[in-house]
């Protein structure tokens, strides 16, 4: 058996799983120190379903800790951003588009150095070790504890990033963490560099968080390996998290979506998560969230992380309803639903009141909404169903039919059937879906690079990329026999000669839990 834990901002959910069967599921409030919340959650699991520590083969943890730390600008390490690319790129140095608040929070220092490549792999200028040593001395003098290194076109050739890292490491010693951009982002220098700087700023915290999580699990006599959820839902081991904390950034919505799908028995579906203020809509394809193709802003910083593509509508259980136009949202009473909604004796007509009036939900005092005009109730609820189904339609990538799964407290707003998609699936056990999502034991490997495809060598190049992704998945702990390519993309880059092609391959397999 294995354990899935989701540490959210408010709640810590945990499940004890036997394969895909839920043996026990609990909800605890998240503690300030993270650790004690997890300790209590595991105690609760034990109380529901006794088990020996030795019987647990793996513990999977999803946490929003790192993204919250960035958003709140706390516990970030003094960080330097070093970019190789001179004489190019001088006009826009590293950190140029960061909000001042976050630049200050990481005591950000930007350095430009020679190096980098052209789109076709020719060098822009030779790397200069003396220049790097001078920069390193300045970093040391300013108390830098973490360094992000980027290099122009490093997704094409990353040799110079590695070489510069060796030079900087030799100067600054082993206590300074170094993050390399080619391991974190893709084409688009500023966005990739920003993601790398964020990663660098979180490295110190990653060490203490991982140590804390490990201690909490070990305190229960569980010696099994510990994994953390990544943005796409696959798992990474503790060493990887220490080096790439940014890879956890989107694990919250991802685990929620994957959990919803898993509890509904679906692999490809749209998930509509309706809360108090918004409806968040995402798409799962073969169990993995469809990812954004454009830049993503995190805490006001433009990055090109692979994040699940989530569309938010201003419709939730607490949404205001206009009695004239029957418009729902975007204003909401939010968490004050239980004091401000009509059914709870308040004065604000909310979407939840409509659901009660229509007999779709039973909460508060139904008599307090008996006076509502049935026509208004019908029109407003219909408009919710139409807008949600339009949004789902907007998210899907083709006209193929796709099942819709509705979760969250506000899902009572949806009828049993919605336009375009028909039946709405409502999973049971959803209260701990995030933890179930975290517990899905898959690991993956992804390659995303630009290649100059030589004439007649296309197939060979594509095969080599696929194999590289498979090898990476196996190295991450996948059972070789279960690994397959789940995502493959080949995009010729316009305006460039020499068949420059961006190739992306993702391989995923089941975690080898040694049982």
């Amino acid at each position, binding site marked *: 058996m294995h354990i899935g834990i989701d540490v959210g901002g408010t709640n810590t959910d945990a499940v004890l799983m036997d394969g895909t069967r839920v043996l026990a599921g609990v909800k605890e409030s998240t503690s300030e120190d993270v650790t004690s919340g997890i300790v209590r959650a595991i105690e609760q699991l034990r109380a529901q379903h006794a088990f020996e520590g030795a019987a647990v083969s793996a513990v999977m943890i999803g946490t929003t800790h790192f993204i919250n730390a960035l958003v709140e600008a706390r516990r970030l390490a003094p960080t330097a951003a070093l970019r190789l690319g001179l004489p190019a790129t001088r006009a826009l140095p590293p950190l140029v588009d960061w909000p001042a608040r976050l630049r200050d929070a990481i005591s950000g220092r930007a350095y430009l150095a020679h190096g980098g490549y052209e789109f076709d792999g020719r060098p822009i200028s030779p790397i200069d070790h003396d220049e790097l040593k001078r920069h390193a001395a300045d970093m040391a003098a300013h108390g830098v504890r973490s360094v992000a290194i980027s290099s122009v076109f490093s997704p094409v050739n990353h040799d110079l990033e590695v070489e510069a890292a060796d030079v900087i490491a030799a100067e600054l010693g082993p206590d300074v963490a170094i993050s390399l951009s080619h391991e974190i982002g893709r084409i688009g220098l500023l966005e990739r560099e920003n993601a790398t700087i964020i990663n660098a700023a979180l490295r110190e915290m990653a060490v203490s968080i991982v140590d804390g999580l490990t201690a909490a699990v070990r305190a229960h006599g569980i010696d099994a390996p510990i994994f953390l959820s990544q943005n796409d839902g696959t798992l990474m081991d503790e060493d990887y998290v220490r080096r790439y904390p940014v890879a956890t950034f989107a694990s919250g919505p991802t685990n929620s979506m994957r959990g919803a799908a898993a509890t509904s028995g679906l692999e490809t579906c749209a998930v509509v998560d309706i809360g108090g203020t918004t409806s968040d809509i995402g798409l799962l394809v073969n169990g993995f969230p469809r990812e954004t193709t454009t830049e993503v802003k995190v805490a006001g910083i433009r990055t090109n992380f692979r994040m699940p593509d989530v569309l938010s509508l201003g419709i939730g259980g607490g949404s205001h309803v206009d009695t004239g136009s029957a418009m729902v949202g975007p204003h909401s009473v939010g968490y004050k639903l239980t004091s401000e909604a009509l059914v709870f004796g308040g004065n604000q007509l909310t979407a939840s009141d409509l659901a009660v009036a229509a007999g779709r939900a039973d909460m508060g005092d139904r008599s307090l909404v008996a006076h509502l005009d049935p026509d208004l109730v019908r029109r407003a609820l219909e408009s919710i169903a139409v807008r949600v189904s339009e949004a789902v339609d907007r998210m899907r990538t083709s006209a193929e039919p796709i099942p819709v799964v509705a979760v969250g407290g506000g899902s009572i707003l949806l009828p049993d059937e919605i336009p375009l998609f028909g039946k709405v699936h409502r999973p049971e056990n959803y209260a701990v879906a995030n933890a179930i999502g975290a517990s899905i034991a898959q690991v993956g490997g992804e390659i995303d690079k630009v290649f100059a495809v030589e004439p007649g060598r296309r197939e060979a190049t594509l095969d080599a990329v696929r194999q590289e992704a498979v090898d990476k998945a196996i190295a991450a702990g996948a059972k070789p026999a279960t690994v397959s390519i789940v995502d493959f993309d080949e995009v010729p880059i*316009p305006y*460039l000669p020499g068949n420059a092609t961006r190739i992306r391959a993702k391989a995923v397999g089941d975690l080898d839990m040694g049982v």
Partner: protein
Amino acid sequence: MAWTLDTQHVPDLARGAAVLGTGGGGDPHIGALLATQAIETHGPVTVVPADELPDDAVVVMVAMMGAPTVMVEKLPSLDEVVAPLRAMEPLLDAPVTHIACAEIGGVNSTIPVAAAAALGLPLVDGDAMGRAFPELQMVLPTLFGLSASPMAFADEKGNTGVLHTIDNLWAERIARVACVEMGCSVIITLFPQSGAQFRQTMVLGSLSQATAVGAAIAQARTANEDPVARAVEELRGRELFAGKVVDVERATTAGFARGHARIDGEAGTLELSFQNEHLMAQLGDEVLVTTPDLIMVLEHDSGEPITTEALRYGQRVRVIAAPADERWHSPAALEMVGPGYFGYPVTTHRFDGTPDPGDRRGTADTTLAPTDTLEAVR
């Protein structure tokens, strides 16, 4: 009246330029960052209306040539903005007094702002297209017989070249090859002209217009009005169609992102044909609008312009059309940028749906010398 372009104008200019880019012209984000940084470093830019330009002013266009994909990775240094101008200047009768945009669509509307700031020169309110087109000879001054040469180009490494070509198509061909060798992102300076010539050959006021379009969209959003309707009003165009993107088909051939998009709406299915820029809109068999008039795709509610690269299934969009500069409708101009040039065997249609009387394809008289065009315009 001359006005001062400061950092607060840059987002409006970039958004307006993305609208006028008609789907092409590259990601305006980097262009906007460059302009903002240059203004913060060197101070704001004076924008001079063409009617205040002295007759003997020396105006030069500054533009980025290359691949937008490269530009987001190998960012410019802005040193390469100065070099081509300095290489070109000794070949001119007098020092350069003003900078201008070659095209108002996309990044080439904001790069000249950065250049003007870095060079400490004023920018003239106008451009050579009034929109975006993919090749450097596709500008109104070509129709007036103006030469792109002497033209200079430079990369960030310090390499500089100067061209003297027999015509503007050769300038495009030779510069394009050099550009690839130099790393696929160079700054070019070209089409030196006098203030008097500028007033005759260029689209006047387009920098102000782009800024006004961008500002109108932003203001409409804040005021809860319809941003698309406001954009249509600013452009004196019309809304063609509203619907949902149901299919996008693209292939990259010969350096151009060619393709089609189908949009389903109440009036049927609109088909857009694009090659970097949107070039033709058809409803069933009926041609609604073609190049050179402007076809633009805006997000249905926010009015945010959508580039051809960012078009995808499911988007709710509105397609709008607006008139191009009248001189683009002369027979010689349609030879250069009409639908026939881009391989669409249809008659040119104006933004309001009427067939273009200037389209003489299929008749004997299809070749007009630039001087004829000049006469026609006068």
